[in-house]
């Protein structure tokens, strides 16, 4: 019989390295036409980080995402970066980029101030313009200011900066300390169908609510969450590297190491929890790793709700679930002596 169940999994996760320094540096070069080039040492690993980083630079310069071209991941040309690890790119590299763009913008403001007859600290960069705060009609296109800066004033608007999240070392005896600058929180809920005759588990629906501070690009956040859930489903139900008694792997191929495919994916609803972290770039934190964290917990709790068995060892394969169901049924059976 197919039995349905619901389960919840909740988690917290830090951004950046545990105590250890993990700096990022960045350079932003504003071109003569107001577009800009961003140099970063981080690596695009498919998550869309370069787009998010371009958005951060664009926001600081008051231009659009498309106005930023990103050059990345070449040790000869790009500044140092600790890399695409520890869910740190948006937060740490993003902060470095925001500071670098701020430095480039400072040059633009200093060049624009006399032209607009104000002090540099009265200016803001909005909508491809350098304008006076609270008096937007006095403004100049950013392109004009950048051209003026480079070719008239001889001050190319280039900014560089670095960022390292502040931490406090942990006591070796008690572990007390401030190992991370910030954390994110998330909950996922799973609805499963368990066949109590075969032990097979089918995840039919998941809802996920993740905190990532400000979502710099909500579409990419959703993509990360859906990808994380697929990885979480593999971890919960299917994937396992097996070894023979000599320590050699038995299934080093995708025929026998079973990953979830698109056909295994449930319907997913994603929500982004509204939050703002004052230490992040425009309030952003990160979302990469946390998305794969609570999925297995939610699914195993849903199995427990459906058939009343607690899976204590992952993955919850059909064999394991069926064995647990049988054990439970056996222990519940009462011994009735035969009638004499």
């Amino acid at each position: 019989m197919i039995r349905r169940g619901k389960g919840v999994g909740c988690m917290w996760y830090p951004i950046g390295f545990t105590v250890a320094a993990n700096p990022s540096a960045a350079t932003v070069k504003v071109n003569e036409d107001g577009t800009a080039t961003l140099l970063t040492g981080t690596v695009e690993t498919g998550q869309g980080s370069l787009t998010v980083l371009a958005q951060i630079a664009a926001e600081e310069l008051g231009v659009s995402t498309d106005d930023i071209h990103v050059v990345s991941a070449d040790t000869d040309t790009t500044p140092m970066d600790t890399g695409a690890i520890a869910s740190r790119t948006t937060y740490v590299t993003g902060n470095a980029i925001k500071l670098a763009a701020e430095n480039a913008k400072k040059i633009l403001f200093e060049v624009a101030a006399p032209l607009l007859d104000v002090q540099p600290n009265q200016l803001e960069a909005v909508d491809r313009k350098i304008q006076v705060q609270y008096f937007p009609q006095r403004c100049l296109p950013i392109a004009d200011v950048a051209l003026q800066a480079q070719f008239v004033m001889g001050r190319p608007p280039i900014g560089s900066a670095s960022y390292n999240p502040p931490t406090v070392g942990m006591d070796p005896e008690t572990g007390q300390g401030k190992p991370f600058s910030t954390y994110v929180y998330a909950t996922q809920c799973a609805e499963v169908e368990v066949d109590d005759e075969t032990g097979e588990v089918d995840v039919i629906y998941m809802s996920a609510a993740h905190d990532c501070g400000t979502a710099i690009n909500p579409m990419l956040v959703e993509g990360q969450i859906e990808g994380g859930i697929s990885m979480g489903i593999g971890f919960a139900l299917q994937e396992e590297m097996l070894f023979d008694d000599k320590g050699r792997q038995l299934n080093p191929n995708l025929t026998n190491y079973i990953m979830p495919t698109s056909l295994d994916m449930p319907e997913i609803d994603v929500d982004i929890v509204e939050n703002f972290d004052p230490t992040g770039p425009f309030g952003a934190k990160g979302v990469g790793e946390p998305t794969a964290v609570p999925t297995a917990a939610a699914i195993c709790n849903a199995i427990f709700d459906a058939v009343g068995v607690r899976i204590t060892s992952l993955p919850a394969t059909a064999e394991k679930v069926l064995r647990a169901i049988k054990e439970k049924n056996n222990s519940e059976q009462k011994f009735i002596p035969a009638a004499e």
Partner: protein
Amino acid sequence: MVDEVKVAEKTEKLESLRKIDDNLRLPSVPERIAFPKEIGVSAARMQTPAVGQRATRPDGRMHGLGQTKYIDDMFFPGMIHAKIKRAGIAHAKIKSIDVSEAEKMPGVMATLIGSEIPVNSFGPSLQDQPLLADDVVRHAGDGVAAVAAVTEQQALDALDKIKIEYEELPNVFDPVEAMKENAYKIHNNESNVYATKTIMKGDVEKGFADSNFIFERTFTTQMVEHVPMEPHASIGQWDANGRVTLHSSLGRITLGRADIARTLELPINRVRVIATIVGGNFGGKNEITTEPIIALLSKKTGRPVKCVFTREDEFISSTTRHPFVMEYKTGMSKEGKIMARKVRLICDGGAYCSWSETTLGKACILSAGPYNIENLHVDAYAVYTTKTMTGAMRGFGAPQVCFAYESHMDDMAAELGIEPLEIRLQNAFNEGSASPTGQVLEAVVVRDSLEMATERFGWKEWQR
């Protein structure tokens, strides 16, 4: 007389054969991929302010049109191919390696063994891993020799000709067994435990004494692979000035460059690492793998050398997710408040440290869950075993401990007759809560996420 029927049959047969041949024959010049020259940019990319926009990715267009160049798509003039010989034996002393037969094989241009690498060790915390094992093999996927040949197939054929004599050593597969004093010491250390972490907060014994109920359960998790779409790949080019350029699928180039320079004994400014668009990382590409090996093969041959892992290489020789053994003991009040928690984590660290120390640290801090627990004691150990090494993988120990603490939570909720959502809301961090390490937490939204996800799910109205 000509049998016309027979001739017709023969022509037809020839024609069909020719067709098959045409279908099989690859075009000598690949068809040009046409793409629209006028580029329509999505409105979200043009919008200001930029933050919060659903901006599309410029690389998405390249992927969609098949224009992205991954390492395997790159060719350089004169480029040759490298393959790595795997030990195939989990734990053994290497008595001898003979590559002379392999070097005589057709197409083979160079071989490399561990003793030829200037500094044959690397690792982010402990430099305990050889690039090519030269003394002891500690897991079956350990590389023992490399071959560079004109084609991949020639390199593969040559691998079979490499003769290695092993002296088998005892295997240690179970991390709990490996922790025991009498276990065989895989790295000749005093113990196979190579990292320990502790967190102590409040007074657990008093907390347990004050509890109405005490729950205990042990959880375990398995070893899994990252399985990125693109396997590890790199191309090395040693130039006439003694400078090496590496196109690599590394996820962290700055530290990778330092590691490569260290193993090759080169000044850092003579190493250039270019990471192309990486086809999935998930933590598996956070450290060097074959880069110094192909750099040296390129130095030996004067040719660009490419090495792309097969899926099997990826499984047996790259890092994986740590299996954990997690013992949980939690004291609860009858109202459902967590009074005290004791956790013992044993992480199967595999043959080499890699990122295990960091993983253990994160798992240790996160193991209590996003809950207010005044009395907490966590002990965590990373242990060597003679299995594929475990390292960084999306979540750094968090998916393992989350599976344990959340399963444990529902166990307790069921015993106490409290709704799973209620017990979580009752114990969840608030704004200003102190973390297990005593850090005051800000911008805490555990409750909001619990309420949002369950509301979307329809948790309260849900019916079986």
